[in-house]
């Protein structure tokens, strides 16, 4: 039992995709039915390929942006809250629909700031590789306190965005400053990018622990799905940050 009451109340991970209790004890599954690192990485590769394929579609048919975003959100919530064990079928559809959304939104940013898309892709994967190295080498050690900090910050950002959307729906223009290209807006974006990036560390640790403890095979898809959720968020935030910097 954790010493932190907040952890016991809200779950044990920063990423909402990791707050489910999967039951089943480790070590009692046959070897070929256990989660492996290889499997999780390969499945992340499949999801990335599907995301790029979706981005190609979204880039060429930007009208699909909003439907793809809504479908992606629904699939994401279904995977997290309804059927993590079905991640093998929902995660590829999620990656494809989010790819269409990212392709469409990147097209709009590209029209304003040429070359911004490839910069955001390079930085997203650059952060992914460098944080993976930091995690594997033990430079960054995720602990319960680390997880609590990232979880709190992630939930805070989600709440802020939710309030901002509600305010803009009622003609309020959203929360001032955080969307501006001033120092405060850029500082806020840097903070959000940092939190999204640190969520990757929790994803790596989750996959490592799942493979180490021999969790069921479907957890490979679930781990890859969680990594995709974080990568999509990180890419969007980097895109916003670069847009703010270039619009100054």
């Amino acid at each position, binding site marked *: 039992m954790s010493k932190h009451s907040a952890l016991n109340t809200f779950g*044990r*991970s920063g990423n909402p995709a*990791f707050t489910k209790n*999967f039951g089943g*004890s*480790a*070590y009692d599954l046959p070897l070929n039915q256990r989660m492996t*690192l*290889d499997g*999780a*990485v390969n499945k*992340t*590769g499949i999801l*990335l390929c599907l995301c790029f394929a979706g981005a190609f579609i979204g880039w060429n048919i930007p009208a699909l942006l909003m439907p793809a975003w809504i479908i992606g959100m629904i699939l994401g919530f279904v995977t997290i809250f309804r059927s993590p064990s079905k991640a093998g079928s929902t995660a590829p559809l999620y990656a494809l629909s989010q790819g269409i959304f990212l392709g469409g939104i990147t097209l709009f940013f590209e029209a304003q700031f040429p*070359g911004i898309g*490839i*910069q955001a*892709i*390079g*930085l*997203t*994967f*650059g952060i*992914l*590789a*460098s944080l*993976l*190295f930091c*995690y*594997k*080498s*033990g430079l960054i*050690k*995720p*602990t*319960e306190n680390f*997880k609590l900090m990232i979880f709190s910050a992630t939930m805070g950002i989600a709440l802020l965005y939710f309030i901002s959307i509600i305010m803009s729906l009622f003609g309020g223009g959203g929360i001032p400053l955080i969307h501006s290209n001033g120092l405060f807006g850029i500082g806020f974006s840097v903070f959000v990018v940092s939190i999204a990036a640190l969520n990757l560390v929790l994803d790596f*640790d*989750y996959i*490592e*622990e*799942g493979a*180490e*403890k021999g*969790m069921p095979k479907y957890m490979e898809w679930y781990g890859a799905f969680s990594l995709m959720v974080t990568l999509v968020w990180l890419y969007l935030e980097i895109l916003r940050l670069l847009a703010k910097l270039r619009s100054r």
Partner: protein
Amino acid sequence: MNALIFGGLAIISLFIFFNLGKMKASSKQLNRNNRINRFGTQQNTNNIIEGESKEIVDEDKD
């Protein structure tokens, strides 16, 4: 030039991810007491000191 630099960065990073991701984390990362225990299935045996535990018998309780 922009596409070349950032495209190259993306490809190199993906190559690192697919190779490094399949490797086990270092012992510095795995063998520590303050690791997050999400699945709660492994018992921490570090608190048991070999040879120093003593069985409690009924006479000791009195």
